[in-house]
């Protein structure tokens, strides 16, 4: 409980320190990007894959921003994710707050998977999907971004958007499944038998 509120505080602090932009500008820029990928009759499956790739590339870069800024803000209590489930707290209370200004609720589904529940979708404020694009995963960049972040710090994960406001759902649900840890360099030194 106390850990949870300290994460909320850290998230609020990080949000207050980070530079802001107009949310309309952000939403529209993302809209143009998706629309550009969708033009020339590209099948939605390919657009989904491109959005995920873009997200991953963003995540690989943002994770260092996240770690460096949070350790500057709380130098005495480094927020280290020791287990996979810990990452849900870091993403929902600090990461999302820091970069999107929102927080998410977490539903732990099992030891190796959790769902992030966002009450609104900042990427899709004005969006209505046409029927020809009903299979478009509009917010896939978010899934890719979370995946890129977690993979950069050694967690193998699979991230999927389960619910989205553009599909008529109440909010957004992002399912994160852990697939184990990546091997570290030079592993296999002294081990406890």
């Amino acid at each position, binding site marked *: 409980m106390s850990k949870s509120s300290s994460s909320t505080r850290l998230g609020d602090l990080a949000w207050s320190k980070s530079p802001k932009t107009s949310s309309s500008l952000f939403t529209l820029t993302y809209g143009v990007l998706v629309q550009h990928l969708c033009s020339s009759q590209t099948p939605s499956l390919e657009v989904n894959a491109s959005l995920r790739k873009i997200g991953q590339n963003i995540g690989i870069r943002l994770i*260092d*921003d996240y770690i*460096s800024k949070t*350790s500057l803000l709380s130098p005495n209590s480094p927020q280290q994710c020791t287990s996979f489930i810990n990452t849900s707290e870091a993403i929902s209370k600090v990461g999302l707050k820091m970069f999107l200004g929102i927080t998410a609720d977490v539903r732990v589904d099992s030891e190796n998977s959790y769902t992030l529940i966002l009450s609104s979708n900042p990427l899709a404020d004005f969006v209505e999907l046409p029927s020809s694009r009903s299979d478009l995963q509009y917010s896939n960049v978010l899934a890719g971004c979370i995946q890129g972040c977690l993979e*950069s710090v050694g967690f193998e994960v699979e991230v999927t958007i389960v619910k989205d406001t553009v599909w008529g759902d109440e909010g957004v649900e992002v399912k994160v499944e852990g697939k184990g840890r990546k091997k570290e360099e030079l592993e296999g*030194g*002294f081990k406890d038998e």
Partner: protein
Amino acid sequence: MSYLSLLITSRSGGLIFHTPLSPNTPPLQTNDWLRIGSTFHSLIAISKTSVPKECGGMERVVCDNVVISILSTPTGIKFYLVSDSTITSPPLNEIYAAWSDWVLKNPFYEIDMPVRGERFRREVEKICGYSK
């Protein structure tokens, strides 16, 4: 109180950035810097595995007049700040934050490649109070 130089190595151990931070920094060839960078990367990897418990690896190398302070990030980038021994709290986290702003957010920077831009170097010089 002064800093001598900063080195940064990539996830795979290659030197991707180095800069002198004092007129007293010994003038080394780029090849020598590359060798020093990858040697340190290996030393940290060895220091991690040569202890029975889980350990973040070497953080400081202390000599008579010189201290090397090391920051190993969870993503595998490592920062080495060489300073004289009067420096007690090296600004490694500040340099890491500048790295995330001025290097990683540059869309033309390729991950794990050497840093070519000047913005980051200027930022480091500002943090370390070095003006040429």
